[in-house]
C-alpha cells in the first residue's frame, strides 16, 4: 500500500513532465514513421513514378530497340529519346540530370560478339541516388541482352573447333548459328532457364511473400525506447536521494524493498503503456497513413509476456545505473551513451548481424538483443510462445542479474 502511494506520486509527476511524455510516447512513433518509410508514404503520388531517362540513340538498330524496351519494362525507369545536340545542351544546363548514349556500333557490335560500351553521362548536380538507380536498371538489362551474343560467340567457337569436317562446317554456318542464338534468346525472355525465387518460411494458410519494412523496424524501436526509459528510473531515484526524500522515507516504517518497488512500479507501468502505444500505432496508425500495419494478433500472450519482461528488465537496468552513477551528469551522459550503445549493439536501429564478422556473439550480452529477437519471432516470424522460451529466459536472467547487482550496490543513504 505504501509502495503504491509512491507509485501514484511518481505517475502524477510523470504526467506533468511533458519532456518525458514526449520521449516516452511521441519520439518512438516518430522513429517508426521515419525508419519504416511511413513518412514518405504520406501524400506520395500513385501515378507513373518512374524516373525519366533521356537517351541518345546513335545506333537505331534492333539491339538499341531491345535495350530501350528492356529498360522500360524493368520498372523504375522510363526512356525518352533526344537528339544528340539537344541532349548535350540540356545536360550542360542541368535541365537533364543524365543522358544515356547508345553508340553507333551497338547493334553491329552485339551481333558480331564485339564488346560495346554504353555511356551514362551525369550532370554534377544531378541526384546521385537516381543515377545509381538508373545505372542498376541499365546494367541489369544489358546483362540480360548479352545472353544472345554469349550464345552466338560460344556456338562460333564450337564451329571453329569443327573446322575441317565438311558436314560440321555446314551445320555451323553463320546463318544457322545466328538463328539458333536468336531463338534461344527469345525463349529466355518468356521462359528463363533458371529463375531465383524469393520466399519466406511458410506459416499455415499464409502467403510466402516478404513482409514490408515497417514490420521489421517496429520491434527494434520499441525495445530501444523501453530501455532508454531506464535513464528515467535512474534519474527519479537520484532526485529522491538528492533532495533527501529517500532518507525521510527510510525513516518511515517501510521496508527498503517496498521503497524500491514503489519507485520501479510507475516506470514499469509507463513502459508497458509505452509498448502498447507503439504497437497500437504500428497496427492502426500505419494503416491509417497507408503503410502496412504490423500483425499483433499472431501471439498475443507471447507479446504480452515479452513486453512485461522487457519493461521489468529496463527498470532493473535503471536501478543498476542509479546504483553505479555517482552524479546526475553520469546518469544523463553515461546513461544515455550506454543505453544507445546497447540499443545499437542489440540491433534496435540497424541490423547488427551485418557486422557479425567483427562483433561475433557480442550482441548477445545485451538484453536488447533478446527482447528484439523475441518480438521479431512473435510478430514477424509468426512463431509461438514456446519458440521464444530461450529469449524469455534470457530476459528473466538479465532482469534478476540487474536487480541483484543493483540492490547489492544500492546506497539508500
Amino acid at each position, binding site marked *: 500500500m505504501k509502495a503504491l502511494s509512491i507509485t501514484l506520486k511518481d505517475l502524477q509527476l510523470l504526467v506533468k513532465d511533458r519532456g518525458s511524455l514526449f520521449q516516452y510516447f511521441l519520439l518512438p512513433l516518430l522513429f517508426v514513421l521515419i*525508419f519504416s518509410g511511413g*513518412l*514518405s508514404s504520406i501524400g506520395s503520388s500513385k501515378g507513373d513514378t518512374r524516373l525519366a531517362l533521356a537517351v541518345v540513340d546513335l545506333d537505331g538498330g534492333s539491339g538499341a530497340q531491345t535495350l530501350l524496351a528492356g529498360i522500360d519494362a524493368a520498372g523504375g525507369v522510363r526512356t525518352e529519346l533526344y537528339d544528340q545536340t539537344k541532349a548535350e545542351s540540356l545536360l550542360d544546363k542541368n535541365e537533364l540530370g543524365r543522358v544515356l548514349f547508345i553508340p553507333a556500333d551497338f547493334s553491329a557490335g552485339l551481333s558480331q560478339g564485339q564488346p560495346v560500351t554504353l555511356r551514362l553521362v551525369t550532370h554534377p548536380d544531378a*541526384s546521385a541516388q537516381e543515377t545509381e538507380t538508373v545505372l542498376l536498371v541499365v546494367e541489369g538489362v544489358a546483362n540480360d541482352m548479352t545472353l544472345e551474343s554469349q550464345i552466338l560467340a*560460344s556456338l562460333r567457337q*564450337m564451329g571453329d*573447333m569443327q573446322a575441317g569436317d565438311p558436314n560440321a562446317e555446314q551445320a*555451323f554456318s553463320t546463318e544457322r548459328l545466328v538463328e539458333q542464338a536468336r531463338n534461344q534468346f527469345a525463349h529466355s525472355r518468356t521462359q528463363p532457364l533458371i529463375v531465383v525465387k524469393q520466399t519466406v518460411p511458410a506459416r499455415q494458410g499464409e502467403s510466402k511473400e516478404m513482409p514490408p519494412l515497417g514490420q521489421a523496424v517496429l520491434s527494434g524501436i520499441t525495445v530501444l525506447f523501453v530501455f532508454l526509459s531506464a535513464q528515467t528510473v535512474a534519474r527519479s531515484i537520484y532526485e529522491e536521494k538528492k533532495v533527501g526524500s529517500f532518507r525521510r522515507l527510510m525513516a518511515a516504517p517501510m521496508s527498503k524493498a517496498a521503497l524500491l518497488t514503489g519507485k520501479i512500479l510507475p516506470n514499469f507501468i509507463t513502459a508497458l503503456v509505452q509498448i502498447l502505444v507503439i504497437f497500437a500505432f504500428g497496427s492502426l496508425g500505419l494503416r491509417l497513413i497507408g503503410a502496412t500495419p504490423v500483425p499483433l494478433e499472431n501471439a498475443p500472450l507471447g507479446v504480452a509476456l515479452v513486453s512485461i519482461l522487457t519493461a521489468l528488465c529496463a527498470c532493473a537496468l535503471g536501478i543498476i545505473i542509479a546504483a553505479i552513477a555517482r552524479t546526475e*551528469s553520469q546518469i544523463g551522459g553515461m546513461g544515455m*551513451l550506454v543505453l544507445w550503445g546497447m540499443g545499437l549493439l542489440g540491433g534496435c536501429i540497424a541490423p547488427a548481424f551485418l557486422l557479425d564478422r567483427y562483433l561475433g556473439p557480442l550482441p548477445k550480452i545485451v538484453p536488447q538483443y533478446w527482447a528484439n529477437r523475441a518480438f521479431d519471432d512473435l510478430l514477424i516470424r509468426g512463431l509461438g510462445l514456446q519458440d521464444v522460451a530461450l529469449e524469455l529466459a534470457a530476459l528473466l536472467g538479465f532482469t534478476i542479474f540487474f536487480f541483484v547487482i543493483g540492490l547489492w550496490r544500492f546506497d539508500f543513504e
Partner: protein
Amino acid sequence: MKAIYYMLSVTWKEIQVIFRDRTWLMILFLLPLLIGGFMGAMNLVTNPATGEDEKQEGILLRVGLVNLDTGVFGTEVSKAIQDIAQFEVSAYTTTDQAEARVAQGDITSAIIIPADFSEKINSYESTAIEVMVDPAEPESASIVTGIINQVVGEVTIWGEVQYGVRSIFKQSGLLAQASPQEQRAIEAQNLGVIMTRINEMRRNPAILVVSEDLLGAKIQGGIELFIALLFAGQAVMFIFFIVAMCSTSLLSEREAGTIRRLLSAPVPRGAIIAGKTLAFMLLGCLQVVILFGAANLLLGAPLGHSPLGLAALTLAVTFTAAAMGMMVAALAKSASQAGSISLILAFVLAALGGAMVTAKEPVIRAGGFTGGIAKIIPHAYAIEGYYRVMAENESLSQILPEIGILLAFGIVFFLIAVWRFRYE
C-alpha cells in the same frame, strides 16, 4: 569596445560552464560519433560499391544450403555458393530442416536447389532456385538474393550454350552418326567452350555500362556519398541539441537571479545574449571539427575541396542553432519547459529535416510531402549545404543560397529572442 569586452567575458564564462557539464559533452560529442560510426561501418560492409577485397573482410551471413540435385548443375551451384566469401554455409539434407532454421531466425536464408535442377536444364526447361529468407532480416534477404542471381547468371549461360551446341549437332544429324567416343569428345569440347565463355564474361563484359560526369571522368560508387550524408545529418542533428543547452542555460541564470545581478553592472543587455550565442556557436564548431575529423579518418568520409565553404556553413548553422535556443528561452516560461520544448524541437526538426538519414540524398531534394515540408526546416538547408561541399565538391559561392537561408532563419530567431526575452 566595452560592449565587445563584456560580450567576450560572458562567452568565456559560458564556455567554462559548458565544459564542466559532462552530460551534455557526451551527448553532443560521443553520441553522434557512436551512432554515425555504427551506421557508417554497417553501410561500408554491405555496400555493393565497396571493393571486393574489403567486402571479403566485411559482411558474413549464415546461410543454409539444400542441394536436392545429384546432377552436375546442382553440384556446381553448391560449389559456387560455398566459395562465396560473404557466406558461412551450413548444408542441410531436407528443405524442412533448413526452413525450420530460417523460421527460427538461426540462419538468414536457405538456398534450395530442387531435385530436378540438372534434369530440367539438360532438357532445356525452366527451373527455379528458391531463396528462403528470414522476414525479420530484410537487409540480408536482398544481399543473398543478389549474390544468388549472379551465380545463376553464369549457370544460365552454361545451360543455354550447352543446349545451343547440342541442338545444332542434333538437327544436323551429326550426333546420331557419331560413335560413343566421338560423342564424348563433342561433350568435352562443349564444356571447354562454356568455360571459355564464362571466363571471358568475367574478364570482359559484352556490354560495359560506364557512368561519367560531363568531362568524361568516371563517377565513383555511392558509399562515400552516403557516409558524407550520414555524418552531415548527425552533425546537424546534434548541433541543434545546443538549443536545449542554450535555452536552459539562459533561463536557469534568470531563475537564479544572476542575470539581474549582471544588469545592475554596466553590462549592455545585448552583450549577454550575444556572449552566450557566441559560446554556443563555438561549441557547435567544435562538434563539427571532431565529428567530421573522426568520420574522415575512420570511415573515409569525403570533406570536399572547400574548407572555406565548410567553415562558413558551420558558422551559419551554429548561429541558427544558438539563436533558436535564445528564441526558445524567450518564449518558454521556465528552464524545465524550455528543456522539454527544445528536446521536442531537436528530434522533430531533425526527423523532418532529414538528419536521421534513411535515404541516399538530402531530403530537400525529395518530392512530395517529405521534400515539401523540408523546405521550411533549417536542418534541411544545413544538410544540403554540407552534402554539396563534402560529396559534390562544391565551393563556398555555390552554397551561398543555403548559407543565406540559414542566416535568415537565425536572424529571425535572434530578433524574436531579443524582442521577447524578459531579463527580470
